[in-house]
């Protein structure tokens, strides 16, 4: 039997685009029964897109999906994937918080019905919880909303392994240990080995490289939407894994040449410690500095920015922000854009308080500000009074930059603002950020892109909600960043 026939799921040349963004650029991947596949990659490498394709949520734009030797590209939906025994545990929890543990098992299994279904559902999930997490302390009649995050995650994982009608041949786990403590995480990894030994298959996505190295049989390294390395786990070391994820040849991210610290004299504009931390490194930013927040997505960088944004009203010993603040949102649709307003309206909203004339907003001042910043930042539109949605994504983002930069803010917070923005726009905006910093503004910049960190004077690496490294520009390398993002050195 050839390798291809043995595999549960095989992807060949799978591509996925979102507008101009190429999330997957031809991925080949196969998982065989009795195998745990590790999947690693830095931000934006395409891990979650790949997982969504496997789960049947996104159809691929190119390439084929073969299930047990049969081409299933067409009609590979969520239901079909489930029928074929492909299960997913997503990072965001997908249980119904108003239902009990057993009832959540029922929602997933249509077969649990008729007389005595409650008992059967409770037994099914309890048995699986006992099997995966011995001593879990979760009663199947507990309401999910009352459970701690860790316990919810345990329920969700156990639920993915339960079987009634459709098998659970391939279980995909996306950062399954992110909210579990080390003992429980060990239990899970042991169960994964057990599941695999019994002929099942797993895909394990994790930022904890030790976990992947010890649990997976094979490790796939993704970078920029493509598989760049596949080897048996035994052939990898932590270091070789890290270097496979990064661009090996280039070495340093930033050229340390000409780096002069702006931290001589004067008190910092921003001084903050992540919420809930009383010890550990602080984030510090001085006037005219560009400070980067790095690390894997979702490790506390955005929370830090929100904390800084609301700091003026609730300053404390561990949080000092000296001067007006504005924020450039990264998730434009949910955090930034006012979709019913014109470009001008979107730019000026942060500053209208300062353009009052007899208590009314001065329309001329508004137009003047919008036009000035449209010129300055190069928003491509015939008329700033057009609706904001008439702009391309990159130009919408520029409008959000204009909103922050046109304001009186001395400190500008940026929440990974270049997501899905084209290269040309990026270069223009980088230039403006550098100019504004030279004029004395302070930037705190969370970014998931390695390249952008080279514009920063200082980079703070976040992991699990805290700061784990503080690198000045002249000591920053990609290797160091990856090492501290993925695991304590």
């Amino acid at each position, binding site marked *: 039997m050839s390798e291809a026939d043995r595999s549960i799921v095989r992807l060949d040349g799978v591509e996925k685009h979102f507008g101009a963004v190429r999330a997957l650029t031809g991925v080949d991947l196969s998982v065989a029964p009795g195998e745990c596949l590790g999947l690693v990659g830095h931000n934006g490498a395409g891990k979650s897109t790949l997982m969504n394709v496997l789960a049947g949520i996104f159809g691929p734009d190119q390439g084929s999906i073969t299930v047990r030797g049969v081409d299933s590209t067409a009609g590979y939906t*969520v*239901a079909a994937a*489930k029928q074929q025994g492909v299960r997913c545990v997503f990072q965001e929890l*997908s*249980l*119904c*918080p*108003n*239902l009990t543990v057993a*009832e*959540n098992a*029922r*929602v*997933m299994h*249509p077969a*649990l*019905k*008729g007389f005595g*279904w*409650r008992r059967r559902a409770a037994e099914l999930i309890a048995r699986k919880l006992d099997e995966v997490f011995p001593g879990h302390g979760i009663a199947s009649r507990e309401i999910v909303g*009352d459970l701690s995050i860790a316990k919810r995650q345990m329920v969700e994982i156990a639920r993915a392994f339960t079987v009634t009608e459709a098998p659970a041949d391939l279980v995909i786990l996306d950062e399954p240990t992110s909210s579990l403590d080390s003992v429980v995480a060990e239990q899970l990894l042991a169960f994964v080995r057990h599941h695999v030994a019994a002929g099942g298959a797993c895909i394990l996505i994790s930022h904890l490289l030790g976990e992947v190295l010890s649990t997976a049989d094979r490790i796939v390294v993704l970078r920029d939407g493509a598989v760049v390395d596949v080897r048996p786990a035994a052939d990898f070391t932590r270091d070789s894994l890290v270097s496979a994820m990064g661009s090996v040849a280039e070495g340093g991210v930033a050229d340390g040449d000409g780096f002069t610290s702006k931290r001589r004299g004067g008190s910092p504009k921003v001084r903050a410690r992540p919420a809930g931390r009383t010890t550990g490194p602080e984030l510090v930013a001085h006037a005219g500095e560009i400070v980067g927040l790095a690390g894997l997505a979702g490790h506390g960088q955005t929370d830090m920015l929100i904390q800084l944004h609301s700091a003026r009203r609730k300053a404390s010993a561990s949080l000092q922000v000296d001067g007006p603040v504005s924020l450039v949102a990264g998730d434009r649709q949910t955090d930034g854009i006012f979709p019913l307003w014109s470009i001008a309206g979107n730019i000026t909203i942060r500053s209208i308080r300062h353009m009052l004339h007899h208590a009314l907003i001065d329309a001329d001042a508004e137009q003047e500000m919008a036009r000035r910043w449209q010129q300055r930042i190069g928003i491509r539109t015939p008329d700033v009074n057009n609706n904001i949605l008439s702009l391309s994504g990159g130009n919408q983002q520029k409008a959000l930059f204009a909103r922050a930069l046109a304001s009186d803010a001395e400190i500008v917070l940026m929440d990974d603002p270049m997501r899905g923005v084209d290269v040309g726009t990026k270069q223009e905006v980088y230039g403006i950020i550098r100019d504004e910093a030279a004029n004395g503004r302070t930037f705190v910049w969370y970014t998931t892109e390695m390249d952008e960190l080279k514009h920063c004077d200082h980079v703070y690496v976040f992991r699990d909600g805290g700061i784990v490294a503080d690198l000045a520009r002249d000591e920053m390398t990609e290797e160091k960043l990856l090492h501290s993002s993925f695991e304590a050195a």
Partner: protein
Amino acid sequence: MIATLLSPRFLRNALPALSLTVLLLAIFQLQPRTMSYFGLNLLLNLALPIAFATIAQMCIITVNDLDLGIGSYVGLVAAIGATWLNETPLLGVAALLGCILIYAALGALIHLRNLPSIVVTLGMSFVWLGMALLVLPTPGGTVPGWIRAIMTLKTPFLPFTIYAAVAVGVIVHFGLMRSAYGTVLRGAGGNPRSVARAGWSLLRTKVTMFALAGFFGMLSGLSLIGLTTSADANIALRYTLLSIAGVILGGGEFVGGRISPIGAVIGAMTLTLAASFLTFLRLPPDWQIGAQGGILIVVLAFRAVINRAEARR
């Protein structure tokens, strides 16, 4: 043991029953003669129609919507019940079934067009009221004898209303809280995306819940005319607000599929009693709805305190 009794979760669940008990004891204290068959019958007379309306509202709230038309819908059912159902029973039954179908269609419309249920049901409240006036332009009509017979049933030990209310609570509890599909229906209120991902149709859940609301609204109207013996298009306009209050009093939450059928029935009875309570306090009946509002606020305040205690833990 005491720790369990004082745990926020237990307190929150016990709150509806607790408020009903406190109110009932207070009434017994003020007027011991109510502690009798006839006394209870008098106190809780109108509880059953309100309980049905509250259950109907609860069905809608389960799927994160709100029905501002249930009061006038109950009025329409009452009008049909006191006219067509009595004179030409077949036409009456067909009309009532048609009403339930309209409810189901509303659920589909709201889901498919992603409309705000408040506005749609508000519009429907005009439609129901108008239809009721067309069926029964002036108050009156004759109630079919069998409805009257059921509602005035002399049951042993306790008045019929109490048995019926308990039965309604228990039946709906089994239907929504214990049955397999009921679980999916509530799940659709709790996390629609996850339920859809598990392969269930959200359109079907919404249509089911709206049709159920139409069904229980119908029971509300029929049981109401069984007590009043005649109908009026405006007879139940207050039920819209009462039913929402009853669901919330009974421990239901506004969003997220957290409901309690037994609690809803208890909530409806609490509201009915609150009105009677004043009479015994020798307060003018003017304060009836005020007392209902006051109880609602007090219970919600308690709940806010409990929730905060929980958040602090």
